[in-house]
């Protein structure tokens, strides 16, 4: 039985766990999603959007889809993966199951809690009816698969005029409770008018057992809302991630999604922005640093539909050994989206002789009064700059690392949580295998 068949046949059993109201909207949405997935199947190489990211190597396993009941994990085991040095809200999942022991949720003024609770309790029904699965792409088969199995994840609902004084951390850990597991977290984030929130998300495996995470997050930003979202991945070589994040923005909102991909076996970051008003700003920043045969695919879409909006996209990649990367950045400027300012830059350095990147900027511009620019570079290390540093007594290895650090620096500078910035700098140093010996 193929994985697709197994998933489709597991759906009914999975859906029947707990007391699902068979007349509810949610049940209807899940049923529609599984039937879409059944028709679409997993994407293969014939699918243009997946041409350079074959899923064969991650789909060959006999994944378990039923998470075990709560596995005990001590705080000390996960401490290093979260921003423990600052006060924050935390929603922690162990093997796909919520850990109340490790989490810090709230209902005080706003809701930072669980999707499973939101699905069950009537008071959340109106929010779910308005937002759940509204912008998730129905043409995306893996998103449909996630929707069909959407039982757990993080639910964030911030009303109007709320500035959160501390960030929210969404943390997914995998303990290796099964030999091979498929995890499908589903997050819904609704941020009201004039509100401000910072979110940090991480998927982390704690063992060498195989894990595939197929995550979907929907973010809705109200008028003038500001959302800073940070995705950090530095996972085991047995862990793969397919992340689909969908963002809808209302007038004058600013949403920034910063993606740091430092490893895992296969990583696909799919990021889609939809505008619903004027004067919107969308920021997409990313650093990828990978080695060996690791693979990272960054797929982005910004769909400009209204006047006077901006999008800024800055993607940097460093590929060592035989690592492979994909950047596919699509920007659509519809006919009515005059005075759009869309900027896209994708710079890559191939350190390894066998490393490669498939970069594809895709601009579809139908309006005439717009400023759109895009640039894409693929290069090797600047030999002259290396010589400069070596001539000052800095050995080649450190010199290379400093240069690569400098290359990614403009993305690092965009991090607005100081503790996270320090963490990312340390992670970059670790990835580049040097100790800079100073805080930058």
């Amino acid at each position: 039985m193929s994985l697709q068949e197994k998933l489709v046949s597991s759906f009914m059993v999975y859906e029947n766990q707990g007391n699902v109201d068979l007349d509810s909207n949610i049940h209807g949405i899940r049923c529609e999603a599984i039937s879409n997935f059944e028709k679409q199947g997993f994407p293969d190489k014939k699918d243009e959007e997946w041409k350079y990211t074959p899923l064969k190597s991650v789909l060959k396993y006999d994944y378990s889809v039923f998470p075990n009941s709560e596995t005990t994990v001590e705080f000390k085991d996960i401490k290093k993966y979260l921003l423990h040095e600052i006060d924050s809200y935390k929603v922690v999942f162990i093997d796909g199951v919520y850990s109340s022991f490790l989490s810090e949720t709230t209902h005080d003024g706003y809701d930072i809690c669980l999707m499973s609770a939101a699905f069950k309790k009537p008071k959340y029904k109106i929010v779910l009816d308005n937002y759940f699965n509204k912008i998730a792409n129905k043409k995306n088969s893996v998103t449909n698969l996630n929707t069909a199995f959407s039982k757990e994840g993080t639910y964030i609902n911030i009303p109007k005029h709320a500035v959160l004084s501390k960030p929210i951390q969404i943390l997914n850990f995998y303990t290796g409770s099964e030999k091979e597991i498929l995890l499908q977290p589903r997050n819904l984030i609704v941020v009201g008018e004039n509100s401000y929130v910072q979110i940090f998300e991480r998927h982390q495996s704690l063992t060498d057992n195989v894990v595939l995470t197929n995550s979907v997050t929907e973010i809705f930003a109200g008028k003038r809302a500001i959302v800073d979202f940070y995705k950090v991945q530095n996972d085991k070589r047995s862990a793969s991630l397919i992340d689909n994040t969908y963002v809808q923005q209302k007038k004058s909102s600013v949403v920034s999604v910063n993606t740091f991909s430092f490893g895992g076996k296969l990583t696909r970051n799919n990021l889609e922005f939809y505008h619903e008003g004027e004067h919107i700003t969308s920021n997409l920043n990313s650093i990828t640093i990978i080695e060996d045969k690791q693979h990272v695919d960054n797929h982005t879409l910004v769909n400009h539909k209204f006047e006077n909006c901006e999008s800024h996209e800055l993607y940097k990649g460093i590929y060592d050994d035989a690592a492979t990367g994909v950047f596919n950045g699509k920007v659509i400027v519809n006919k009515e989206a005059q005075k759009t300012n869309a900027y896209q830059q994708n710079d890559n350095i191939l350190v390894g002789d066998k490393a490669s990147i498939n970069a594809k900027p895709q601009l579809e511009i139908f309006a005439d009064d717009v400023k759109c620019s895009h640039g894409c570079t693929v290069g090797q290390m600047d030999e002259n700059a290396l010589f400069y540093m070596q001539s000052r007594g800095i050995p080649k290895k450190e010199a290379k690392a400093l240069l690569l650090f400098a290359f990614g620096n403009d993305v690092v500078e965009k991090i607005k949580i100081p503790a996270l910035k320090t963490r990312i700098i340390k992670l970059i140093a670790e990835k580049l295998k040097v100790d800079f010996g100073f805080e930058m």
Partner: protein
Amino acid sequence: MLEIKNLHAGIEDKEILRGIDLKIKAGEIHAIMGPNGSGKSTLASVIAGNETYEVLEGDIVLDEESVLEMSPDERAHKGVFLSFQYPVEIPGVTTTNFIKTAINAKRKAQGLEDLPAKDMLKMIREKSDLLEMDRKFLSRSLNEGFSGGEKKRNEIFQMAMLEPKLAILDETDSGLDIDALKIVANGVNKLKSKDNAVIIITHYQRLLEYIVPDFVHVLFNGKIVKSGGKELAHELEEKGYDWVKNL
């Protein structure tokens, strides 16, 4: 201190240096002048160990030891310093952190502990004052957005911090206005001692008004075609480089 023997070097199949002989003793200042394309910067790069160039023949000996097999950083640890004509910009790494990394790398190679922060700061303060540097440059990313003059001043600041035995200044005067030129020259003169040596590579004699050389060599077509005292620089300035082409 430095002895260059019959040095032939080039890039790929092109020979640029065609047999250079040069002896430099501690305490001396040598100027190397010559028209564009004569091989001046190549010579500087080859001494510092730039791997883009291949040494085809001859030897470079520093303190009785051949440096040909040494990497640029190893040569730096032995006391070679090259001030670049076009210093490189490194965003995200402050001048202070860069120089700290460089100094501690050298100390590590010498088997020493990192320089204590207090001593480092004191030294940075002294040397930046010597070059009349605005301290805010020290906390800015290395050379990023610096003017040509500021970059050159920063090069000499790094030289002051690293205290090299042999400093090679490659076209340090280009891009400097007269005030900056005086400050840079003053810095170099103050750093000069009987134990170190300086090679000044320049197209014009302007800088030599302020850093007076003991010897002047004229490089043309990859060879030293004439050597003399400081008066040779004046002669060159008067007669122009066409004169050396016919020597």
